[in-house]
């Protein structure tokens, strides 16, 4: 049943996302492509939408993927699934969080998890890049346009401009080239 499946997959994503934001990207990528819920390109498009709308990335992504897969019911199940693990865990430790914070086991686990998350995002980034750039024909028109956008977006990020500005600029350049070419 699709509702249960959405709940369970997003429960796992909520349970294993440490650090929030882009840390969940590798998990989402693996889940949606294995279940054929949305394509990798649709996922990247929706990261842009999530960055330009209010609220946490995790909630935005799960609502969207649930909605695309099984309508409003699907959106509810996916969002409930992604929120549920953190809700329960925080409730359990909110009374004794000082003990939790100073626990050496937690510190050891985090020492292993933090670099793992960085490596996983790097792998997700490489795979996402392959769906943006056509590796078969490196000098294709679309690749050159994308390269122009990557360079200018890189400059905006370096100047610490907010994501929505980066996305707006990329959309404008994309539309401009679309009209010219």
């Amino acid at each position, binding site marked *: 049943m699709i509702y249960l499946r959405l709940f369970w997959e997003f429960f796992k994503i909520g349970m294993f996302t440490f650090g929030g*934001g882009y840390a969940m990207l590798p998990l989402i990528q693996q889940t949606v492509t294995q279940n054929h819920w949305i394509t990798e390109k649709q996922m990247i*498009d929706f990261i842009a939408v999530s960055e330009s709308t209010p609220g946490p990335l995790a*909630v*935005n992504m799960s609502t969207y993927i649930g909605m695309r897969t099984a309508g409003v019911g699907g959106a509810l199940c996916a969002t409930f699934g992604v929120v549920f693990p953190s809700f329960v865990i925080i409730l359990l430790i909110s009374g004794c969080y000082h003990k939790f914070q100073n626990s050496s086991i937690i510190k050891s686990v985090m020492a292993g998890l933090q670099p793992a998350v960085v490596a996983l995002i790097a792998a997700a980034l490489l795979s996402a890049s392959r769906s943006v750039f056509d590796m078969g024909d490196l000098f294709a028109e679309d690749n050159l346009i994308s390269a122009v956008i990557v360079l200018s977006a890189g400059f905006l*990020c370096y100047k610490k401009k907010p994501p929505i500005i980066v996305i707006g600029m990329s959309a404008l350049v994309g539309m401009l080239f679309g009209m010219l070419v």
Partner: protein
Amino acid sequence: MNMKPCKELFFVFFKIGAFTFGGGYAMIPFIKREVVDGKKWLTSEEMFDIIAIAESTPGPLAVNSATFVGSRIAGLKGALAATMGVVLPSFLVILCISQLLLQIEDFQIVKDAFQGIRAGVIVLIGSALISLFHRLHKGAFTAAILIAAFLLTYFFNINTIFTLVFCGLSGIIWNHYSKRGKGR
């Protein structure tokens, strides 16, 4: 039980959910302004504690802090009210937007815009990656985990959750043996 704090929790976190873009660390100043400076529900130190806890517990930062603040102020009901509040705005906005996207995604101009946006998103992910990398404690263990986790995922296509569990356990084993080494 008094319902007033629950209502207030719901509305404050609704506002936080409705007006913070980008999620995660972008939300911290806003949460601090509302919860520490405005409502005085938490002290600054407690706010730092929450950020530290949110980093070592799973799930989105916004949800973690809403649940934490809610449960501190009004127990389980408070946690529910605050968490519902922070999630509801994005839930509703995304429901509308996903319908809108279905209507317009086949127009050529929208396709062109997204063609550009995809390249921009690659850069956003890249820049998040760089800042996460800079925050890592540098050392042999970190380097080993970075390489192992990357190889497992990218080349061997190992399940992401398995990789995370493996790396968490490696952290425990590494700390155990490196402490014993120092003890001698």
